[in-house]
């Protein structure tokens, strides 16, 4: 069974590239959501193995979305990997301190992205 993962990002292009990367490079099943609210909704309905969550989004940003996922008992257990455009280590540490499974930075290399996610989540690739 291939892994399945939910990508939540407001940028259509990034969503598309990331989905393509995970599908073609790793062969995972990918679902997407274009906002935090939609992401929470889809996570609850789809119950993905993991969620790739963009931090900087208009309206409900990554932190709020993560908080919402945590508060919902049906999604609280799903591991979340944050994707941020900020490369500063102190910021990454702050984000990691929220309780997420891991933090990855943009821009990413589509060929290594699945490996990086798998490493964070402890999946075999």
């Amino acid at each position, binding site marked *: 069974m291939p892994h399945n993962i939910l990508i939540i990002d407001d940028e259509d292009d990034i969503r598309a590239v990331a989905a393509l990367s995970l599908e073609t490079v790793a062969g995972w099943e990918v679902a997407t959501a274009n906002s935090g609210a939609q992401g929470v909704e889809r996570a609850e309905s789809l119950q993905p193995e993991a969620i790739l969550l963009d931090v900087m989004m208009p309206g409900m940003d990554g932190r709020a979305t993560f908080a919402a996922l945590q508060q919902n008992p049906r999604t609280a257990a799903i591991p979340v990997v944050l994707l941020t455009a900020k490369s500063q280590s102190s910021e990454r540490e702050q984000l990691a301190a929220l309780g997420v499974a891991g933090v990855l930075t943009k821009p990413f290399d*589509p060929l290594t992205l699945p490996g990086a996610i798998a490493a964070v989540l402890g999946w075999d690739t």
Partner: protein
Amino acid sequence: MAFWKKEERTSRKSVEPEFREIVDSAGSMILVIGTDGTVLHVNPAAERLLGYYASELVGQQTVEILAPGEGRRVAAELLRLRGSSIDPNAGPRERRTAVVGTIGEVAPSLVPTIETRCRRKDGSTFPVMVQVSALRDAEGTMRGLVMVGLDQSATLEQQQATRESQERYRDLFENSSEMIATLSPGGQFLYANPAWKRSFGRDAEELMADSFFADVFHEECRAYVKELFREALDGHASDRMLVRNPTKDGRMLELELSLSRRQKAGNPLAVRCLLRDVTQQKNREHRLALQLAVSQIMAENAGLATAAERVLEVLCVTQEWDLGVLWEVDAAWDRLVFSTAWGAPELAAESMIRQSVGLQTVATSELAGKALAKGRTVWIRDLTEAAADPRVAAAIRHGMASGWAIPVRVGNSVLAVLEFYCRRQLREDEEALASAEAVAASLGQMLARKREQGRADDLTQQQEVLLNAVADGICGLDRGGRVTFANPAAARLLGASASSITGKAIHELLHPAGRCGAECPLREITAGTAPHAGETTMARSDGKEFPGEYGFTPIFERGQFSGSVLSFRDISQRYALDRMKDEFLATAGHELRTPLTSIRGALGLLSSGMLGEINEKGNNLLRIALNNSERVIRLINDMLDLEKIQHSSDAIEHMPVQLADVVQVAIEGVQPVADAAGIQLIHDMVQAEIFGDADRLTQVLTNLLANAIKFSPEKSSVSVMMRVENAGVTISVIDEGRGVPQAMLETIFDRFRQVDASDSRQKGGTGLGLAICRTIVAQHGGRIWAERNPMRGTTFRFFLPWRRVERKMEPEAVAAIEKIEEN
């Protein structure tokens, strides 16, 4: 000489009585001596003069009545009559025989009177004129000598006294500095002492050849002298009348003339003339008077122009010069600018001044310019010799004959030049020059003072303008931290008037009661004497607060703390700007990275071939696009990073850092790259802990290592060495690469500065790596630099102090930094 009896022995009895009486009554000393030297007769005058009784002498052969040595001398003199000389070893007896022989042979008229000295019985001597003649008997046989002596004591003394008296008067007259003359009633010189030559250049003979004594004087004063002479002849003596006598060589002699009549029976015999040269004395008096006048003018403290003009006037009037001009030195242009002038009240001088006004001269060929260039007085006795100078030519046209220029100096610098002209031809006169130079010195002092004052005024004005213009609040504080001065900005920042601030403690103004604790740093600083800078919240008089930055500078006068200056400014705007910039950077970072993420991702997937086969040209293009998108990403990352480190106060953490770990991490990070490039990485195992940011330091070392690897040839090595020092740790990265040119060792740390402009494209660098390194090291209080290795390659070193020194420095910290820098 018949009174000598032929047969008789020499005795008083043998002298015939009548002659004996004559002999004995004679006032002259008369001695009769036999041919054998026996004294035959001594008259009473001889007894008296010689102090012997006749009986003591008569019959004696050995009595010496001549002064010691005189016997030999007299004998020699007498022998010379016969042309013979005496054996120096001859005794009295041989001498006598020779003398007797001589006297006997020589005609009496040829025997001279001899001056000699006789010796009294008591040994004292006296001058005598001696006449020696032969004593012959009736047959004409010589029986002895008659010696007649005349005492000369009285005569000689009188002569000498007269001679001495004359000598004294002569000496007095000949050496007198006063001119002394005796004039005939007709006015001719009868006598003139040598002093006349000194003043008039003519000796007594020349003077006595003159027809009239008044002719030796210059025509300007001749009539006056004649008048005085005539009055003296009439019995009205003149006593020390002042005569000003110009000399041919352009000097002015000041003389005091006294004339008085010598008369006999009411008729004038002669006129006594005493003439004294008082030029020097008068000059001294003039100079003193001049100095006094000049001092008074200076003391009145009038404007420079007025004072200078009056000084010129006083100088010209006392020295009888016709025109004086003051040229001031314009140091900025090295030229002379007309300042002021004075001219004798007549048309020519006025016209010459009018021509000078507004003139500027630089030409060293001109009189004043020459004095400036040479730094000493230039004197032209005859202006026609310097007519090439247009100004001199003008002076000649205005009837001037002599001209000179005197530099006005203070210390080593010439501040002005005084230029003078005179209608009379004057030679360089030391006295006049001394006067003028003394005046020039006073004028120089005044000029220097006025200039200093002017400069001080300018400075005060500049300072005031600056203080009023600056946006920073500036307060002058007394030793107790109370405001003595506040500029308008200080008043504005505090929302109060400058006058209401003055006198209040600055701390109470900035931190009104209750806004800060007892240990408020600002309170401590403004009460202390140490320089300090920092930030604090400040309050306006209406209670509104603003973030402020301040600088506290103590003032020490001669080592004593005398007060301080506190400058402060409102930095709310800077805070706002910092916030805006942070937001902008975050947004820009996100906004730029997001599209780049898509591009990078899309290109990565395409070029992986996973989405389908792409032909070779297409693949090439994809690779180019991918490389360049990565380059843009790195560039954006580096730029944001650099901005962040430079301007964000929390960009650098301060935690204990094990430098060995940093080295380890950095080497592990670049190991794959080094392996790929075939380069060996070497590092030592030194342990050291500093305070800093481990990630940032790793970034620095990674960057240096990456550079070293990038520019090193295959199979070379790159070493990391750590050296622990007193002040901190130096880490060196040594490569064997192509090296950095000497000229670029410094600039290589600037942004976008690479050894070769094509490096960034060929080697994939952004041109910001070393700039980031430098910023990070500086944030740690350290220093980074590059050195050329002796053989090849480059060593990049960075020094990190044990603890970062705060920017808001305490004096100890400043000292520590200085020490570090020295090392």
